[in-house]
C-alpha cells in the first residue's frame, strides 16, 4: 500500500484563454481531513473537477492507492469511491430530495426503482444531518442551505472512501456548520479521507490536519495546520499581508435613512421592523431560512409585501418593482449571484453597467466608450481578477463574480445598500477588500444592511445586529452587547429550539 490514498502530480488544465492549473501537485493521506485553500480563481474547484473526471487535465497523472488511474468521466470516479460536493449546487430542482440523493445509484430491484426504500434511506441520511425537511420534498422549494445539505447527503449515500467538499459551509450559518463538522468527524472516524475547500479559517482550524495552498493556478505548499500561523497562511494564499480583516471605520451616525415598520408577507415573514441610519451598518442575521432574503427583497420591490410600511429619509415610499427602489437610491446585491446578480454569458463590462446604461446614453442610444471606461474603473476599484472587460462572467471564479456584483451596485447613485451574503465564497483577500468598500461607503454616509450567515463578519462589521428566526424578528443587539452566544440564542428562539428537541 502506498502512503497516500490519492496523489496527483504535475496537473495542468487549460481553458480557452486561461491556464487554470499550472503543474500542481497534491497528496491525500488515508483518514485525514485535508484543507485546500487559496484565493478566488486559484483553481481549487477546477482541481476538484480534474480529480472527479469532470474536466480532463492536459498534463499530469493521478494515483489512487498507488495505482495510476485515468478517469474518463465522473462515473469512473464514483465507481472508484470518490464522491464530491461541488461548489455550485448541482441539484435537480424539479425532483424530490430522495431522487437528488440517489441519482445515478438508485435502489433498484428487478430493474424497478424502489421509491419507498429510497425515501426511507434518504430520510435516514437527512436525519444524520439533522435536516428539517422530508425526503419527498421538491428540491427547488428548499433554500440554498438546505440544498447544500442534500448535496452532502448525496456524497454520504455512495459510501465513498474519499469525500470532497467544495465550500460546503459558504451558505451555512454557525449552527449548520457545527452539524457539518460533526458529520466530517464521523466520516474520518470511519476511515474516510476528506478534501475540504473553504474560505473560512474557522472551518480549517476546526477540521483539517493539513492544508494545501494554491495561488494563481500554482501549487504553493502543504502545511500542517498546527505548525503554521494565521498570518503566514494568509500570506501564502494572497501573496501579501492583510493587517486588518474587518476595517470597520468609526463613523458619526447621521439621519435615519431607511425605516421598515411591521413588514409582513404571508408564509415568508411577519411583522418585521428595523431602521438604518446614514453611515450605519446593520447586520441582519439568523439561521438558514429565517426569511432574511425575503424581507429585503420585499423592501426592494422584487416581491410585494402584504402589510407594512417602508420609509426613506422619513418619507413613506411605495416600491412596486426593483427599478423604483433604484430610482430612490436603494440598491440590493442579490444573494444568488449566478441567477440574480449577473448575466453569466455576458462580458463583465456589460454586466457592470446593466442597470445604469440609460444614465449615460445619448438619445436612447448606448454610449459604449463611456460604458467601457466606467466598467474598467469600477472593476478595478473592487480589484477583480480579470483580463479584460469583455470576458464572460462565467469564466470568473465565484469570488470574482461576487466582486463584479459589487461593482455593478457601485455604478449608481445610492442612499441605502443592502448586501445579501456579499462574501459568500469569497477569499480572505477579497473579503477584506469588500469590507473595506463597505467601510468606505459607510464613511460616505450611506446606510448599509448586511445580511450574513458568517458570525465573525456580522460581529466584525455591524453597528447593530438584527436577528431573525422563523420569519420574525427576535431581537436587536448593539455592537457592544453582541456575542456569538447571544446571537445564536436569539436565532434559535423558543419554538425553534423546542421543535429541535421534539425531533431528536
Amino acid at each position, binding site marked *: 500500500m502506498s502512503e497516500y490514498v490519492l496523489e496527483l502530480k504535475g496537473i495542468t488544465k487549460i481553458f480557452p484563454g486561461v491556464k487554470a492549473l499550472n503543474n500542481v501537485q497534491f497528496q491525500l493521506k488515508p483518514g485525514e481531513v485535508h484543507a485546500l485553500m487559496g484565493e478566488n480563481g486559484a483553481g481549487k474547484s477546477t482541481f476538484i473537477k480534474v480529480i472527479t473526471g469532470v474536466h480532463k487535465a492536459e498534463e499530469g497523472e493521478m494515483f489512487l492507492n498507488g495505482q495510476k488511474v485515468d478517469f474518463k468521466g465522473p*462515473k469512473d470516479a464514483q465507481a472508484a469511491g470518490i464522491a464530491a460536493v461541488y461548489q455550485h449546487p*448541482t441539484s*435537480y430542482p*424539479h*425532483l424530490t430530495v430522495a431522487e437528488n440523493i440517489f441519482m445515478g445509484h*438508485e435502489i433498484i430491484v428487478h430493474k*424497478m*426503482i424502489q421509491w419507498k426504500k429510497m425515501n426511507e434511506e434518504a430520510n435516514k441520511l437527512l436525519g444524520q444531518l439533522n435536516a428539517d425537511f422530508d425526503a419527498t420534498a421538491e428540491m427547488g422549494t428548499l433554500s440554498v442551505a438546505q440544498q447544500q445539505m442534500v448535496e452532502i447527503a448525496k456524497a454520504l449515500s455512495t459510501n465513498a472512501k474519499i469525500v470532497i467538499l467544495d465550500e460546503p459551509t459558504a451558505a451555512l450559518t454557525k449552527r449548520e456548520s457545527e452539524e457539518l463538522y460533526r458529520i466530517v468527524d464521523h466520516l474520518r472516524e470511519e476511515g474516510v479521507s476528506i478534501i475540504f475547500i473553504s474560505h473560512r479559517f474557522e472551518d480549517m482550524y476546526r477540521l483539517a490536519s493539513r492544508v494545501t495552498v494554491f495561488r494563481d493556478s500554482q501549487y504553493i505548499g502543504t502545511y500542517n495546520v498546527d505548525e503554521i500561523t494565521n498570518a503566514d497562511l494568509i500570506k501564502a494564499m494572497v501573496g501579501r499581508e492583510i493587517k486588518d480583516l474587518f476595517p470597520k471605520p468609526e463613523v458619526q451616525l447621521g439621519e435615519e435613512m431607511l425605516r421598515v415598520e411591521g413588514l409582513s408577507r*404571508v408564509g415568508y*415573514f411577519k411583522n418585521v421592523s428595523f431602521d438604518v441610519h446614514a453611515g450605519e451598518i446593520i447586520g441582519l442575521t439568523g439561521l438558514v431560512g429565517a426569511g432574511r432574503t425575503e424581507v429585503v427583497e420585499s423592501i426592494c420591490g422584487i416581491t410585494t409585501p402584504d402589510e407594512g410600511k417602508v420609509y426613506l429619509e422619513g418619507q413613506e415610499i411605495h416600491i412596486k418593482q426593483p427599478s423604483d427602489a433604484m430610482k430612490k437610491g436603494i440598491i440590493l446585491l442579490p444573494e444568488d449571484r449566478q441567477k440574480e446578480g449577473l448575466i453569466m454569458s455576458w462580458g463583465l463590462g456589460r454586466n457592470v453597467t446593466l442597470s445604469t446604461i440609460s444614465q449615460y446614453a445619448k438619445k436612447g442610444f448606448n454610449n459604449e466608450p463611456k460604458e467601457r471606461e466606467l466598467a474598467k474603473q469600477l472593476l478595478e476599484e473592487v480589484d477583480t481578477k480579470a483580463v479584460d472587460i469583455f470576458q464572460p462572467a462565467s469564466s470568473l471564479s465565484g469570488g470574482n463574480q461576487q466582486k463584479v456584483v459589487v461593482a455593478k451596485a457601485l455604478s449608481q447613485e445610492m442612499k441605502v445598500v443592502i448586501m445579501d451574503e456579499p462574501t459568500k465564497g469569497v477569499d480572505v483577500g477579497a473579503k477584506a477588500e469588500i469590507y473595506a468598500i463597505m467601510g468606505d461607503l459607510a464613511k460616505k454616509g450611506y446606510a448599509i444592511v448586511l445580511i450574513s450567515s458568517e458570525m465573525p463578519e456580522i460581529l466584525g462589521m455591524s453597528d447593530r445586529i438584527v436577528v431573525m428566526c422563523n420569519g420574525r424578528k427576535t431581537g436587536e443587539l448593539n455592537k457592544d452587547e453582541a456575542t456569538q452566544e447571544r446571537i445564536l440564542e436569539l436565532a434559535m428562539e423558543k419554538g425553534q429550539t423546542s421543535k429541535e428537541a421534539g425531533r431528536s
Partner: protein
Amino acid sequence: MKQKSTLKKITGSREFLLAVILILLFAIVTAISPSFLKPKSLMDMLKNNAVTMVMALGMLCVMLVGGIDISIMSTLALSGMSIGMLLKYGHITSTILAFVIALAIGLACGFLVGLVISRASVPPIIATMGFMYVFRALGYLVSNNGEWAGAAALGSFKNFATSSVLGINAVVWVIILCYVVFFFFMKWTRTGRKIYAVGSNPSAAEVSGINVKNIKLMVYMIMGVLAGLGGALQVSVYASAMPDMQQGGEMDVIAACVIGGVSMSGGRGTVLGALLGSLILATIAKALPLVGIGALWQNTIKGVLILVVVMVNVILQRIADRNALKGREM
C-alpha cells in the same frame, strides 16, 4: 395525520386540478348532449384521437429535457405514406410488418433529429422546423407526388383499427398499452428518471455522469418511434394515406402536453398529465360539433377554451400555492 397529508398532496397537485377541469368539461358536455357519456361514444373519441394521445407521450419526453419537436407530423406522414404505398403496390401485406416498418422509419427520423440537436447543438425548435420541411417533402416523394393509398389499397391492414380484443378496440388497446408502459418507464426505471434529471439541470446531470447527449438523442428517438406508430395508426384508423395528413397537428400534441402541465423549459411533467391534457383536447374536439355550435364559431371557441383551460389552471395553482403558504406556521 399521514392520511391527511397524502390527501393534501393529491389535492394540491397539478394533475388533480386538471382532473377537476376534465370532469367539469364532461359534466357540461353531457348536460347539453347526454349521448356523449355513452361508452361507445367515449371509445370513438379515444380512437379518433389515438394519434395525438400516443404522440403526446413522446412530446412529454422531449419537453421534459427542455426540447420541442415540431417535425413529428411530417415524420408521421412519411412513415404512414411509406407503408401505405408499400401495401398499395403489394410489396408487403402483413399488418405486423407494416407496423414494424412504420416504427423503423419513425425511429430513423427521430435519430436524425436527435443527432442534429444533441451533437451539433442546434436549438430544437430550429432543427425540427427544418426537418418538418424535409420529412414532409420526403413523404411527398414517397407518394409519387401526391398519390393516395385508399381503403382498397390497404388490404387487411386497415382491419387492425376495426378489430377488437375483449370488447375493446385494438387502437384503444394501443393507447392503453403505451400509457401503461410509459407510466412505468418514466416513474420506475433509471432511464426514465434520467430524462427528468437532464431536463431539470443538464449540467448537474453531466457532472453526475449521465450522458446528456445520449439522453437527448434517446428522447427524440422515442418521439420518432411514436410518430411512426402514429403514422401506422392514422393510416389504419382512417383507411387512407395522404402525404399531407395531420399537417399542423403537432400543435395539438404540444397543446395537450402544456395543458397537461408539462413545462416547456423542462424537468416538469408526468404521464398522467399528458393523458389528462390530451383527453381535455379530445373532449373539446368531440364536443364542439356535438353541442350545436355553428360551424363558423367552432375554431374561435376551441381557441378560447384552450386559453381558458390553461389560464384557469394557472389561477388554481396560484390559489393552491397561496393556501400552502398561509398554512406555514411562523
